[in-house]
C-alpha cells in the first residue's frame, strides 16, 4: 500500500500535475503516441516547432544513431501555424494537459506573427521559443548565441503576446549564463535547456556526412552531463523556473536535473527508445520521494546546489 506523492509544480504561471513533460519534436503533436502513452498523466506536452509558413523540412537522411545518442536534422518540418491551429491543436487540447507550443522562425517578425496568432487560439498554455534557428537578419546567426539578439527576440514576442513565455536555450555557446539572463530580463517566465549539441557523423564507405544536412543536433543520454552542468550553472544565475532536458531515461536521470535546480524536466529521445519512459521516470521520482520521506517534491529543486 503506497502513499501517493505530490509531484505537482508551478511553472510560468501554470500548475503542472507532474514535473515530467515531453520535449519539442520528440512527441509529434501528441496523437502519434496516444495509443502508447497515458498522455493525460504528463505534466505538459511541448509540440514540434511551429513556424509562420509551412515547412517541408530537410531532405533525408535526417537522423542517425551515435554512441548513447542520435543526430537529427529534421529541419523544422511543420504545417505552419494556421494548419497547426486548425488540425493539430484541437486533438492536443483534448488530452487535458497544458499544451506548450514550440515556436520557430527566420526573423523576429516571424516569431511575433506566430506568437500573436497562437495567443488568439484557445488551448495554448504557453509558448516555448526555439532561439537556435538561423536568423536571416543576423546573417544566419542563431539568436541563441548572443545575449543582445536573444533579448531582442524575447522582448518582441513578450510585447506582442500575453501567453507565458519559455525561452529554450542552445548549449552551443561559450557562456550560457549571460544569454539566460538576457532572456529573463527581456521577459521570459521560464527557461528550457538544453537544445541539441551540434554534431556530425561520417559514412566512411560513402566518404560523406551521413546526414543530407551534413550537421545535426546531438541528443540522448550522451549529452546528459553537459545538460546537467548547464542547468546547474544557469540555476545559480537566474530566478525563473528551469525545464531541464537532455538524455533523461529514468527517475534518477530526472533527479539530476531537479537537484541541479530545474523545476521540471522534459523527455525527448527517450520516447523513441521506450514509449513507457515518462511513466518509468514518474515511478522513479515517486519511489525516490517515498524512500527519502520527501513529502513535497518541490523541496528537491536545487537541493544539490547548497553546499
Amino acid at each position, binding site marked *: 500500500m503506497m502513499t501517493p506523492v505530490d509531484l505537482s509544480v508551478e511553472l510560468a504561471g501554470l500548475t503542472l500535475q507532474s514535473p515530467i513533460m515531453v520535449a519539442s519534436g520528440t512527441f509529434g503533436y501528441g496523437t502519434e503516441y496516444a495509443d502508447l502513452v497515458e498522455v493525460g498523466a504528463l505534466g505538459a506536452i511541448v509540440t514540434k516547432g511551429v513556424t509562420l509558413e*509551412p515547412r517541408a523540412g530537410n531532405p533525408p537522411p535526417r*537522423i542517425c544513431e551515435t554512441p548513447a545518442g*542520435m543526430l537529427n536534422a529534421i529541419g523544422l518540418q511543420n504545417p505552419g501555424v494556421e494548419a497547426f491551429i486548425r488540425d493539430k491543436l484541437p486533438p492536443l487540447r483534448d488530452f487535458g494537459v497544458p499544451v506548450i507550443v514550440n515556436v520557430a522562425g527566420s526573423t523576429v517578425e516571424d516569431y511575433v506573427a506566430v506568437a500573436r496568432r497562437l495567443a488568439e487560439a484557445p488551448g495554448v498554455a504557453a509558448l516555448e521559443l526555439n532561439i537556435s534557428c538561423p536568423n536571416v537578419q543576423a546573417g544566419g546567426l542563431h539568436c541563441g548565441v548572443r545575449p543582445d539578439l536573444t533579448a531582442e527576440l524575447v522582448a518582441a514576442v513578450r510585447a506582442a503576446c500575453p501567453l507565458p513565455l519559455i525561452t529554450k536555450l542552445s548549449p552551443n555557446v561559450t557562456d550560457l549564463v549571460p544569454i539566460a539572463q538576457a532572456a529573463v530580463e527581456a521577459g521570459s517566465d521560464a527557461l528550457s535547456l538544453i537544445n541539441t549539441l551540434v554534431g556530425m557523423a561520417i559514412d566512411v564507405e560513402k566518404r560523406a556526412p551521413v546526414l543530407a544536412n551534413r550537421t545535426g543536433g546531438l541528443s540522448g543520454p550522451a549529452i546528459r552531463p553537459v545538460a546537467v552542468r548547464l542547468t546547474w550553472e544557469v540555476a545559480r544565475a537566474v530566478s525563473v523556473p528551469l525545464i531541464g532536458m537532455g538524455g533523461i531515461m529514468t527517475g534518477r536521470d530526472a533527479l539530476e536535473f531537479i537537484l541541479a535546480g530545474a523545476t521540471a524536466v522534459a523527455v525527448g529521445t527517450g520516447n*523513441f527508445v521506450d514509449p513507457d519512459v515518462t511513466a518509468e521516470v514518474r515511478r522513479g521520482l515517486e519511489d525516490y520521494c517515498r524512500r527519502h520521506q520527501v513529502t513535497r517534491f518541490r523541496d528537491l529543486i536545487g537541493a544539490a546546489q547548497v553546499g
Partner: protein
Amino acid sequence: MQNSIMMRSRRATVVHRQQVTPLHTQLRLRAPEIANLAAAGQFVHLRVTSGADPLLRRPFSVMLCDPVEGFVDLLVQNVGRGSEIVALAGVGQSFDLLGPLGTPFPLPPPHAHAVLVAGGVGVAPMIALADRLSRTADDHHITSLFGARTEELLCCWQELAGRSHEFLAVTEDGSLGEPGLVTGPLAGILDVPDPETRVVYACGPEPMLAAVARMCAERAVECYVSLERWMGCGVGACLGCVVPAAHPAGDTSDATYLRVCKDGPVFAAGDIDWGASCL
C-alpha cells in the same frame, strides 16, 4: 479502443532460432498480441538492449504469424551491431517489441494475379503476403520472383515457394535458378495482353524497387513497394524516416515527404519520387 491494444510495447521471448544462412537467422518469438494483429507488410520495432548503446530500436518485418500458438517469426540479416545482437539471441532470451507498426499491403481484388518480387532479406514481408493471400478465399493466383546476388542469399526461399503457384529464383551469378536480375522474368510476366489483371508487390534493394516501379508504371500495372529507412520513433512522431513524395499536393508538410514508419513502409509505387529517393 482497439488501437490502444494494437501498439503497446511488450516483451517477447525467443522460442526457436534457426540459422538459415551464415548471414540470416530466423527467430520465432512468443508475442501473442502481435501474432493476432499483424498484417502482411507491417513491422515490429525491436529494442536490442536495455542499455544506451545501441540506443535506438531496430525495425524488422513480420515474416510469419501463428495467432493460435501466439508466435511471430522474424528473418534477421546480420548487417551491424543491432541486428547481430538479435541474430545471436538464444532461446529464452527476450526483447521489448513495439508493434505491429506501419501500413500493411492492400490485398488484390478476388481472382487477381498477384506478382510478388523479393530481393534479398526483403523476402520477409513477401512471405507474409504470400501466406496471407494463400489463406484468403478469393482465389488469387500467386507468382513469386526471388532475386539475390548468389544462392546463399536466397534465404528462406522455400517459405516463399511453398506459398506460391509459380516460383522463380534468380541469382546474379546464376548459382541457383535463372541468371540475372528479377526484372528480366518480371517483364515476361507483365508483357501480356491484360497486364492490368496483375498486381505487383515488391520488397528489396532500392534500385530493384525503382526498376520494378518503372516497369509497372510503363504498363499501368498496380504496384506496391515496401521501403526501408533508419528509424527513430517508428510511430510517426520524429519525422526522421521520410522519403520524398511523388506529387506534392495539399498541405506541404504532409506532402513533400512521407514517413516510412507510419505512411509506409508499404507505398503505392506511384506515390514515391524515385528520382529523389533512390540515392
